[in-house]
């Protein structure tokens, strides 16, 4: 066996099996310079561990402990509150967080509630869901189906195209920790709605006629019909997801 430096390194790191170790030890016995190399590798490891030991001995900041301790459904953990907001650790507030937190501005709702309730009732009565996108279950509730269900599962707001039939809007977690997403079905009579992920698929608590779309839905919280925006507002726990968080949620299957 050729005694290369990598072999000596592997020996010093305890990576060799008994047979290979024995060969290296025999070679070392015959050539003391090899012993020096092994000793240098081990000394460097010791030195590195000592140099970085202080990080290991520090008490862990509370905001990191809280992340692994608290259930995912609490809004601080779910939305990843910035260190400056949740921790008293002194230098953290001066540091730009690695991930930006943006809050979508939603319109005022004062005085609209009664009109909206009527509008919602009418929408539900007159708009028969397309059999390809939505189905009604026992009790009259709606579930996403077909192309809509697939879009809710896979499509990101960034994937929206002007010609696409289904556009995704805001994504966020509701108070129970479930993911909800707003969407628009751009058919002849465009239909907007909100879908929330449950174990048995996407529940659609609200649909409403939307105006003919004038552009991509991505930043257009204001172009969703008021009924859907109100449904978003009443469910929203924490911030809506930014592009990266939306992608991560999608990759995790909205769980």
């Amino acid at each position, binding site marked *: 066996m050729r005694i290369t*430096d*990598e072999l000596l*390194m*592997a020996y010093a*790191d305890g*990576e060799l099996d008994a047979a290979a170790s024995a060969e290296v030890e025999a070679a070392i016995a015959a050539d003391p310079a090899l012993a020096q190399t092994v000793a*240098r*590798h081990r*000394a*460097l*490891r010791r*030195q*590195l*561990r*000592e*140099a*970085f030991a*202080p*990080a*290991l*001995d*520090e008490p*862990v*900041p509370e*905001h*990191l*402990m809280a*992340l*692994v*301790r608290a*259930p*995912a*459904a609490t809004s601080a*953990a779910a939305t*990843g509150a910035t*260190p400056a907001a949740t921790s008293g650790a002194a*230098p*953290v507030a001066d*540091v*730009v*967080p*690695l*991930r930006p937190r943006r809050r979508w501005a939603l319109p005022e709702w004062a005085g609209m509630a009664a009109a909206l309730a009527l509008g919602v009732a009418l929408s539900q009565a007159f708009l028969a869901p397309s059999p390809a996108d939505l189905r009604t279950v026992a009790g009259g509730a709606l579930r996403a189906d077909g192309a809509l269900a697939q879009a809710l599962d896979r499509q990101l707001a960034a994937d929206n195209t002007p010609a696409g039939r289904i556009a995704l809007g805001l994504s966020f*977690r*509701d108070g*129970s*920790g*479930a*993911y909800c997403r707003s969407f628009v079905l751009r058919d002849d009579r465009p239909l907007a709605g909100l879908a*929330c*992920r*449950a174990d048995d698929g996407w*529940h659609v608590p609200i649909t409403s006629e939307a105006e003919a779309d004038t552009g991509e839905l991505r930043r257009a919280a204001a172009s969703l019909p008021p009924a859907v925006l109100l449904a978003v507002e009443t469910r929203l726990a924490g911030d809506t997801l930014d592009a990266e968080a939306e992608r*991560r*949620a999608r*990759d*995790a*299957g*909205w*769980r």
Partner: protein
Amino acid sequence: MKAPEPAMDLREGLCAMLPRLRRFARTLARDPADADDLVQVALERALARAAQWRPDQGLDAWVFGIVRNAWVDEVRARQRGARVFAPEEHGATVGESSSEAREVAMSVQRAMDQLPEEQREAIALVLVEGLSYKEAAAALDIPIGTLTSRLARGRDALQALLGGASGVGA
């Protein structure tokens, strides 16, 4: 309609790993506040991907891989001009050790800072965090041969930078 929670054994595993994750993040990010932000991002991703982890897989390789990938994402974002940080003076958190030990520690950390990212990660995972070659290669998603060659180059570089200053070459 409650979303399923990450399994308790994952949470417990992550909790137990916290000091090591912070240490590893420090070797990557240097600035201690950056390092804690990095750990936070990694924990959130690990919890979000809980369903992808099986208890029979090594937790170390999986989580350290997530930390490292989060750092790669951050480095790329910075290269696009998305962030500006004022790096803290290295060694600021060394603490109560003797002044000679502090000097040695600072020079080791500075030497690590000089290494190319890929060598530094390999050294950090194997020599500092104690992962096996197989675990470290899994965490970095590279073949073991690539890992060992980065490890060897990193060690050679560190030996050259640290020289005989602290008895390493003796």
